[in-house]
C-alpha cells in the first residue's frame, strides 16, 4: 500500500507500519510505499509517524491497503519526543505536555518560548519588553533556591548551554518558524533521564524535517508597537508649583521648558518577520527542508533593536527500506542586537522644566547639569535622551548548531536499533560598546576630558555532544517491551576576551578569560513495558557525572519509575460513550541540579589579581595571589518528585483534559551559606545545605464546543496552583535576598524556614487616624523599645500561587478567529519605583529632581525612613489578553494553486490589574524597579503555501 498525507495527498516516507502485538513491521519508502507479509486475518496494522495521527486498521485480507494520515500532534496517538526516544501520548506515564504546530500561539512570536506561553499547565513564560527579549521560563516553579531555575532546553537531542553571551537569550537565535513541536517534561519521572540536569524540567524542541513532496511556504508579517502607559510623575507645570510651594529658595533652578522625559525616550516601534521554507525530496529520494528567516524588531526604547537572520537545512534520507534513518540538521543563524541602556530611572527623575537640547551645550548639544566650572556635575541624573543617542552597544552573534543522527535497525536482529547522535552548538559574539567623546557619560567627563568610552568584547562558546544508545523492542504476546540503554558525553567550553574601557587610563588592561571546561558524562537505561496497552510501566536510571564536582561526589544515580492504567480500555468502561478516555498515571523520580555559578570549589585554587588589585611594597606594585573558597564535598542538588495524574475524555474526546498533583522535595540545596569564620576563604560559600518543598495541582480542560464542516470552535483552559515552602536552610539562618534601589546594598526579601522563597521582609507601617501612613513609624514587633532589624516581618511573597491560561480558536468557513488570556494570582509586588523616589526629600539633591506623584498620597519626605515599609507592597494579580487574531484564507480553488491566508491581530491587548505601577508582570522576583515596557502591538501578516 501507499501512505499519503491528508492535506496535500503527498506520499509520506518513513511511516512505521507495525502489526499490533508483534515485531512484524516495516516503514514506508520514499514514495510512501510499503510491503508487509505474514499478516494474519484479524490482525490490526498500526501506521504511525511523527506529527500525524496514528491509524490502526484491521487486516481483513486486503491486497492493497492505502492509508491517508491526518496531520495532528495533539491527539492521544501523537508521537511525543522524550529523552532518547519517542513515545505516543497514549503511552505516556509521566507528566509530559506536547505542543505541536497547531497549538502554537498566534501573533507576534519573535522568540520560540512565546509559542507556548500560557499553553501548558505548570509552565510560565515571562518575556520582557525589549526586542527579542529573553524570558524567565519556569516549569512547576523551578526547583532551586539559589542555583539556576531554568529548565534544560534540548534541541533535536542536543542539550544547550544556558550561557548566553551577546545574544538576547539562549533560544533567541532560533527561528520559531523552524520548530515543529515542543515536549515539556514536567515531572521527575520524565525528566530523570536527563539526570543531574533534569531538576527544573526539560523542554525538548523538535525542528521541522524534510518530507516527500514539494511544499513551499512563505510567511510575512509587519507590526507596530506603541507605549501603553507611563509612570505618573509631575508634568512641568505641576513641578513648577511643587517647587514654588515646597522649595521656594530653589525656584531659580527651574527651567522654561516643558519636557515629558518618558515620551522623549520612547518611540513607536516597527517590526517585521519573513520566513520562506521549501521542503521536498532532492534527487527524488532525499527528503530535505531548507528555510530562511529574517526578523527585524525595534524596541520601544529608542535605538534598541533585534535583527535575526536564520538559515536551516534538514536532510533526512532513509536507506535499506527505512532500516537506516539519517537525520542531519544544520542551522546557521546571525543575530545583531543593539542594546539601549536602561534610562527609565533618569527619565523619571529628570527635571521636566529643562529642555532635551541645549544649543550651547558642549555635550553634543544635549542639556546636562553643569557646575560652577562649566563641567558636568556628579551625583545628578544624566540626560536620558543623550544617554540613548550617545551610546552604541551592538552585539553581532553568529551561531551554528545542528546534529547528525543515525538510527539503524540491525538487519540480523530486528528488535534492536542502534542510535548515534552527534551534536554541535558553537557561537561567537562580538560586542562593542562606545560612548561618544562629547558625552557626559564619558570617562573623566567631570574633569573636562572628552574621552567617551570604548570597549570590545568577544565571546566564544562551544558545546559538543556524543550520544549512543541501543533500543530493543519486542512483544511477548500482549506484553510489549522497549528497553533503551546508552551513553552520553558532552563538553562545554567558554572563553571571552574584553579590551575593557580603552579610553580610561586607569582601567584594567585587555583580559582573556577561559572558563574551565564543563564535562558531563552519563550512562542511562530505560525500560517501557505495557500489557495489552492497558497497564504501563516505565523505569529509568541514569548514572551521571559532572566535572563541576570532586572525584568522590561527581557521580550520582538518578532513578525514576512511573506507571499508568488505561482504565477506559477495561471492559466495564470500554463501551462508555460518556467517559471515552480515562487514564491514571503515577510517577516518582529523582533529578539533580549541578548548574551553579560557583564552579570548581572542590579544587584548591589560587587567583591572581588584575591590574587594579595589586599591592604596594616599597615602590613597586605586586600582583596579589589569594586562595579561593574551597568545598571538597560539593555535589548536585537532589530533587525527589512524586506525581499523580489522570487524563480524561468525555463524549468521544469532545471534552478532554488532565489533572495532576505533584510534590517536589529539593534536598541538598546548593546555597551560598555561612561558613565558620576563619577556617575558609570567605564567610559564605556554596554548600549542599537546605531543603524546600513545592506542591501543586495542574488542571487542563479542552472543549470542542462546535465541530462541523463550516464551524469549529475549540476552547482550552489550564490552571496551576503552586505552594512553596522552605523546610531547612543552612544553620536555620535567614538569607536576605533581592537587592533594591535606594541605599547601597538594601534587600527586600528573605529566605526563612517555614516560609515561601521570595518572601517580602519589611516593617509594618503605622497609620494615623485619618488612615494616612505616618512617615517612619512602624510597629515595634518584638516590643523591645528599639526599632531595628529585629522588627521586620514577612508580608506576602513575589511569586504567584495560581496561574491560568485560556485559549479560544474559532474557524467559520474561510475565517479564523482566536485569542488567548493569561492570569496570575496571589503574589505581591514591591513598588521600588515609588519607595525609592516618591519622597519630597528627593526633589532637591544638588539639582531639582522629579518624583512620582504618588508622593501626594503619602507626603513622605525622607527615603531612608520609608524604604522598607510594607506600604509599598501591592497586589500583583492580573488578567492579560496576550493576543487576538483574525484571519481569512483564500483556498486553493480560488487561488489556482496554493493557499493564501491574510491575518491581522493585536498583541498585549489589555491588562486588568490593581497594581499602580506600569505592569504587574515582572521578573526580578516581584521587585518593580522600572522595566523595559511592553508595548501594544498591531500586526498584519500573510501566509502563503503550496
Amino acid at each position, binding site marked *: 500500500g501507499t501512505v499519503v498525507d491528508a492535506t496535500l495527498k503527498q506520499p509520506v516516507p518513513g511511516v512505521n507500519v507495525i502489526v499490533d502485538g508483534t515485531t512484524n513491521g516495516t516503514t514506508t519508502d520514499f514514495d510512501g510505499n510499503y510491503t508487509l507479509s505474514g499478516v494474519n486475518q484479524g490482525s490490526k496494522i498500526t501506521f504511525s509517524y511523527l506529527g500525524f495521527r496514528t491509524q490502526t486498521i484491521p487486516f481483513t485480507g486486503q491486497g492493497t491497503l492505502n492509508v491517508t494520515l491526518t496531520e495532528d500532534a495533539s491527539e492521544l496517538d501523537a508521537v511525543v519526543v522524550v529523552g532518547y526516544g519517542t513515545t505516543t501520548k497514549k503511552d505516556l506515564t509521566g507528566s509530559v505536555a506536547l505542543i505541536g504546530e497547531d497549538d502554537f500561539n498566534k501573533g507576534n512570536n519573535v522568540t520560540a518560548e512565546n509559542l507556548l506561553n500560557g499553553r501548558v499547565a505548570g509552565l510560565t513564560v515571562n518575556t520582557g519588553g525589549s526586542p527579542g527579549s529573553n524570558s524567565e521560563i519556569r516549569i512547576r516553579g523551578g526547583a532551586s533556591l539559589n542555583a539556576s531555575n531554568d529548565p534544560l532546553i534540548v534541541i533535536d537531542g542536543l542539550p544547550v548551554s544556558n550561557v548566553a553571551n551577546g545574544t538576547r537569550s539562549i533560544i533567541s537565535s532560533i527561528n520559531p518558524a523552524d520548530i515543529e513541536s515542543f515536549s515539556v517534561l514536567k515531572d521527575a519521572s520524565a525528566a530523570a533521564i536527563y539526570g543531574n540536569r533534569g531538576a527544573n524540567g526539560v523542554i525538548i524542541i523538535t525542528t521541522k524535517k524534510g518530507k516527500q513532496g514539494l511544499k513551499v511556504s512563505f510567511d510575512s508579517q509587519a507590526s507596530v508597537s506603541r507605549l501603553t502607559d507611563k509612570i505618573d510623575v509631575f508634568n512641568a507645570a505641576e513641578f513648577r508649583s511643587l517647587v514654588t510651594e515646597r522649595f521656594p529658595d530653589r525656584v531659580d533652578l527651574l527651567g522654561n521648558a516643558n519636557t515629558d522625559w518618558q515620551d522623549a525616550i520612547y518611540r513607536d516601534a516597527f517590526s517585521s518577520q519573513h520566513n520562506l521554507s521549501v521542503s521536498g525530496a532532492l534527487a527524488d529520494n532525499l527528503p530535505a527542508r531548507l528555510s530562511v528567516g529574517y526578523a527585524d524588531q525595534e524596541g520601544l526604547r529608542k535605538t534598541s533593536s533585534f535583527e535575526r537572520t536564520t538559515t536551516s537545512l534538514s536532510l533526512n534520507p532513509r536507506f535499506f527500506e527505512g532500516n537506516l534513518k539519517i537525520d542531519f540538521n544544520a542551522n546557521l543563524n546571525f543575530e545583531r542586537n543593539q542594546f539601549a541602556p536602561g534610562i527609565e530611572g533618569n527619565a523619571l527623575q529628570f527635571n521636566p522644566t529643562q529642555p532635551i537640547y541645549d544649543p550651547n551645550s558642549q555635550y553634543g548639544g544635549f542639556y546636562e547639569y553643569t557646575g560652577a566650572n562649566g563641567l558636568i556635575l556628579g551625583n545628578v541624573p544624566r540626560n536620558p535622551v543623550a544617554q540613548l543617542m550617545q551610546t552604541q552597544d551592538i552585539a553581532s552573534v553568529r551561531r551554528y548548531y545542528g546534529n547528525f543522527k543515525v538510527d539503524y535497525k540491525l538487519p540480523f536482529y530486528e528488535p534492536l536499533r542502534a542510535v548515534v547522535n552527534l551534536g554541535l552548538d558553537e557561537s561567537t559574539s562580538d560586542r562593542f560598546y562606545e560612548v561618544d567623546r562629547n558625552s557626559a557619560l564619558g570617562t*573623566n567627563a567631570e574633569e573636562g576630558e572628552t574621552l567617551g568610552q570604548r570597549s570590545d568584547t568577544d565571546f566564544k562558546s562551544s558545546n559538543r555532544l556524543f550520544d549512543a544508545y541501543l533500543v530493543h523492542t519486542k512483544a511477548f504476546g500482549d506484553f510489549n517491551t522497549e528497553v533503551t540503554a546508552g551513553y552520553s*558525553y558532552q563538553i562545554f567550553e567558554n572563553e571571552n576576551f574584553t579590551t575593557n574601557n580603552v579610553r580610561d587610563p586607569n582601567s584594567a588592561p585587555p583580559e582573556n578569560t577561559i572558563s574551565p*571546561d564543563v564535562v558531563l558524562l552519563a550512562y542511562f537505561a530505560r525500560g517501557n513495558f505495557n500489557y495489552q496497552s492497558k497497564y504501563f510501566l516505565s523505569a529509568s536510571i541514569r548514572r551521571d557525572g559532572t566535572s563541576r564536582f570532586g572525584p568522590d561526589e561527581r557521580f550520582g544515580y538518578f532513578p525514576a519509575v512511573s506507571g499508568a492504567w488505561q482504565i477506559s480500555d477495561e471492559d466495564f468502561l470500554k463501551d462508555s460513550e460518556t467517559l471515552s478516555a480515562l487514564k491514571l498515571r503515577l510517577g516518582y523520580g529523582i533529578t539533580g541540579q549541578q548548574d551553579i555559578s560557583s564552579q570548581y570549589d572542590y579544587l584548591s585554587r*589560587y587567583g591572581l589579581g588584575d591590574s*587594579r588589585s*595589586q*599591592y604596594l611594597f616599597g615602590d613597586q606594585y605586586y600582583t596579589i*595571589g589569594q586562595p579561593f573558597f574551597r568545598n571538597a564535598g560539593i555535589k548536585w542538588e537532589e530533587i525527589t518528585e512524586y506525581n499523580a495524574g489522570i487524563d480524561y475524555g468525555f463524549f468521544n474526546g469532545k471534552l478532554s483534559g488532565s489533572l495532576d498533583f505533584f510534590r517536589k522535595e529539593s534536598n541538598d540545596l546548593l546555597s551560598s551559606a555561612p561558613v565558620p*569564620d576563619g577556617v575558609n576563604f570567605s564567610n559564605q560559600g556554596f554548600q549542599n545545605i537546605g531543603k524546600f518543598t513545592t506542591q501543586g495541582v495542574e488542571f487542563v480542560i479542552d472543549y470542542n464546543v462546535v465541530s462541523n464542516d463550516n464551524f469549529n470552535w475549540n476552547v482550552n483552559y489550564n490552571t496551576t496552583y503552586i505552594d512553596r515552602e522552605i523546610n531547612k536552610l543552612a544553620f536555620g539562618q535567614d538569607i536576605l535576598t533581592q537587592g533594591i534601589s535606594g541605599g547601597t546594598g538594601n534587600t527586600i526579601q528573605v529566605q526563612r524556614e517555614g516560609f515561601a522563597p521570595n518572601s517580602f521582609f519589611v516593617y509594618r507601617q503605622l497609620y494615623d487616624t485619618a488612615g494616612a501612613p505616618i512617615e517612619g513609624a512602624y510597629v515595634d514587633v518584638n516590643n523591645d523599645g*528599639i526599632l531595628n532589624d529585629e522588627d521586620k516581618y514577612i508580608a506576602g511573597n513575589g511569586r504567584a500561587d495560581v496561574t491560568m491560561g485560556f485559549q479560544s480558536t474559532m474557524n467559520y468557513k474561510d475565517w479564523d478567529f482566536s485569542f488567548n488570556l493569561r492570569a496570575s494570582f496571589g503574589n505581591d509586588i514591591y513598588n521600588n519605583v515609588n519607595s525609592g523616589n516618591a519622597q519630597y526629600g528627593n526633589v532637591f539633591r544638588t539639582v531639582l529632581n522629579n518624583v512620582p506623584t504618588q508622593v501626594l498620597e503619602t507626603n513622605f519626605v525622607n527615603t531612608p525612613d520609608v524604604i522598607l515599609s510594607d506600604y509599598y507592597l501591592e497586589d500583583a494579580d492580573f488578567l492579560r489578553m496576550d493576543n487576538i487574531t483574525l484571519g481569512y484564507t483564500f483556498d486553493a480553488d480560488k487561488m489556482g494553486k496554493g493557499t493564501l491566508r491574510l491575518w491581522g491581530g493585536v498583541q498585549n491587548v489589555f491588562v486588568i490589574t490593581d497594581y499602580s505601577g506600569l505592569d504587574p508582570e515582572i521578573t526580578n522576583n516581584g521587585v518593580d524597579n522600572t522595566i523595559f515596557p511592553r508595548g501594544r502591538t498591531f500586526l498584519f501578516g500573510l501566509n502563503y503555501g503550496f
Partner: protein
Amino acid sequence: CESDLDVTPEDDDELLADGFFENEGAYKQALAGVYANLSLTSINDPGGSNIAGLDAGTGQYIRGLFNLQNLSTDEVIWTYENDPGLRGMQRNTWSSDNPLILGVFARASYEIALANEFLRQTTTEALSGRGESEELKATIQTYRAEARVLRALANYHLLDMFGKAPSVTENDAVGFDQVPELVGVDLFNFIESELLAALPDLIAARQNEYARVDQGVANMLLAKLYLNAEVYTGTARYADCITVCETLIGSGYSLTPNYLFNFMADNNTNGAQNEIIFPISNDGTNTQNYGGTTIIIQGEVGVPENNGESLGVNATGFGGLFRVRPEFSRLFTSNPLYRNDSRNTLITADRTEEINNVGNTAEGYIITKFSNRTSTGGFGSDRTFTDTDYPLFRYADVLLMYAEATLRGGGGSTAQALGYINELRERAFGNTSGNITQSQLTLDFILDERSRELYWESHRRQDLIRFGVYSGSSYLWSYKGGPQTGTAIPQFRELFPIPNQSLSSNANLTQNAGY
C-alpha cells in the same frame, strides 16, 4: 573517558595551589595577598567582594573599622540612613543582624584565614618539598613573621570590638570545622605571645620595604594592647605600654612637619612615611577599592559646597556622605585658640553646627582632613579611587599613649609626657602658642586631644571606652542611642554582638552578654 571529568583551570589568572607556588615570585604574591585584604575587597574588581552579606565597599577592612570605631561615636555621622546597618550603627541600636558588624567580623576572620594559609604553604617541609633555595627560605622566614603579625592585628581588632575571636591557626584544616572561640584574656595572651614570637624574625623598624610590617608595627600593636589591657582583661599593663612606647620612640620615627601631609595622596613619599608606622596602601590605579581613604575622601565632600576638587576628587564626591557631630566640632570651635590649629579642618560657613535632620547634607560641619591632593598641589592618579594611604598607626599616637599611660600611673616621666604633647601641639600650631602646662595635662585633656589629633583614624570608640564614657549617660553626644539629644546606652554595647550568621555557622562561638 571518565578521566575527562578531571578538569583543570585553563585561565592564566587561576591556578591550582601547587601550580601557583611553582611560579617565580609566588610567595611574595601570596604575602601581598595577605596584606591586600586590608585594602582590597576582591582580586579583580573594586565592586566585587570575597566576603558576602553586605555591599562590597562597605565590607572593606578599613571602612569596617571606621564604621565601628568612628561612626558609632561623636566624631562623624552618615547622611544616608537607608544604607543597611548604618542607622543602627550611628545611633548605637545595632542588632546582631547588622551587616556592618558582620562585615568586620568576616573581614578580620578572612585576614586570619589568609595568614594561616600563607603559614601552611610555607612550612619548612612544604618549602623543601618544592625544592626552594636556602636563600628563599630565609626570606620567607621574614614573610612568615609578617604574616603572624597581620594575623595578630586581625585578632586584636576582634578582641577590641568583639572581645573574642575564632581560635584558628595554620594547624587547622581549610574547610568547615567549627573551631573553638578564644575569649578575653586568652585571646589577649595569644596575640601578645604571637607578637613577641614574631619580633626576632622581623626586620628592624623603618628598615623594611614601605607598607610592610617591621618590628615597629609589632611593637605598636603591643603598645595598643597594653594600653587597653585593663579593658580587655581587667589587668592594667600601663608600665608595659610605656616600655614599648619608649622602644618605638627610640626607633627613629619623627613627626612630619605638616600635620596634613599624613593624609595626602603622596603620604608614602612626602615625609609622612617617617611618621606613619603602618600605612594601609591605597592607589587610584593599582589598588582600587570603595573603602579606605576612597570612601573617606569622597565622603568628606560637602553638599552644597561641591568642594571635591579641592580634595582631589570630582566636585560632588559621593554626595555629602559624612558630617561631624557638634560635640566633635566643639573640640575646635569652643575655644578660639583652635582656629590656628592646623588639625582643625572644619568647614563651617553657611552650615549649622547642630544636625537636626540626619538626611540634610547642609547641617553639621564638614572636614577636609584626608585629601587626594599631593603635598605639592597635584592630584592623585584617579578622581574616583584615591592614592592616599590610610595611616592605621601613627607615631603621634605613640606620644599620646606614652602621656596617657604615664598619667594612668604606668611610670615614665610626666615632664617627658608634657614634652611629647607639646611636640604635637607645636606641630599643629606651627609655634608654641598652643602649648600646655603640666597642670593642664590631665586625662580629660588627653581624651580630647586624642580626638583632635587622631579623629577619623579608627581610635575613638576604643578611647571613649577606655575613658569610661562610651556607654552610660556621663557623656551624651548627638544621636547617641537614637534621639538627637542623645541618650544613655547600656554597657553591653561596649562590645559588638557576634553576627548571627557567624554564631549559626560555628556552634562554638557564644554571643556577647546583652545581645
